[in-house]
């Protein structure tokens, strides 16, 4: 599939995607977790973000969208999504983080003209642990950090083509 839309295919066109990416995640947290996200006043440390959820994009835009957070944040997300105590939500946290990443990816692509029908999403994959390296044919990368209950969540879009 060719990238017919210059705003999708050119790096310059992607520069304006950062606020859209942020908005996509903020909407998911507000609607599904009833919890607004905050923009950190200064860049927070990303140490301890040991849960990584990934969704692949293929078509007019090829790449990977990742959401990284701590295990504590993941359990809190599951707790809010399910409406149960954090202790009871623990076993569901991987599923919850995967669904959040899936919804952010879908919400994002539906906001970019031409991507809705021109880009497919993979099912989410969740990695536990921070001691890994991800090697992909990255052409450009957009990252934003937002705070959920005061804890950082890193949202990254790696674009391959």
């Amino acid at each position, binding site marked *: 599939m060719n990238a017919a839309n210059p705003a999708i295919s050119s790096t310059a066109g992607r520069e304006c995607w950062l606020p859209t990416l942020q908005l996509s995640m903020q909407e998911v947290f507000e609607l599904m977790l009833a919890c607004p996200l905050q923009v950190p006043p200064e860049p927070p440390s990303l140490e301890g973000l040991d849960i990584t959820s990934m969704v692949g994009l293929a078509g007019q835009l090829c790449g990977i969208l990742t959401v990284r957070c701590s295990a504590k944040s993941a359990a809190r997300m*599951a707790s809010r*999504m399910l409406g149960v105590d954090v202790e009871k939500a623990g076993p569901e946290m991987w*599923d919850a983080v995967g669904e959040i990443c899936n919804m952010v990816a*879908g919400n994002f692509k539906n906001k970019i003209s031409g991507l809705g029908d021109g880009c497919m999403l993979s099912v989410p994959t969740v990695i536990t642990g921070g001691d890994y390296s991800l090697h992909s044919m990255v052409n450009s990368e957009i990252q934003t950090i937002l705070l959920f209950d005061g804890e950082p969540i890193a949202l990254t879009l790696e674009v391959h083509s």
Partner: protein
Amino acid sequence: MENIVTLIVDDSSVMRKIVERSLRQAGLGISQVLEAGNGMEALAAVQQNKVDLILCDINMPVMDGLEFVKQLPAIEKAKGVPVVMITTEGSEGHVVQALSAGAKGYIRKPFTPEQVKEHVLPLLGGKQ
């Protein structure tokens, strides 16, 4: 309100629970909720149970939601049962594809309980 038996089809158990909670919050008279993790399980559930409403994801392993909707009319018990798609695939093309396949409604994730009510209530007709 009459008792409404609902089938929720999604490969995410978290999402199935969220959809169920949204239905209950909407006060739609849901008496029983059945769950399925993909289209194949959903077809089996419909063959074994009398269902009044189906809420179904699109992207699922084994059998996706569009294939499920296409195969549903072949089941006698399922004739006339409305299916509402709930999915992240929210583009116009996907909506047209789902409605053409036989779905009666389409809800984009993320969603609110109010949106679920807005889409589901008109489909329940005499059941409400």
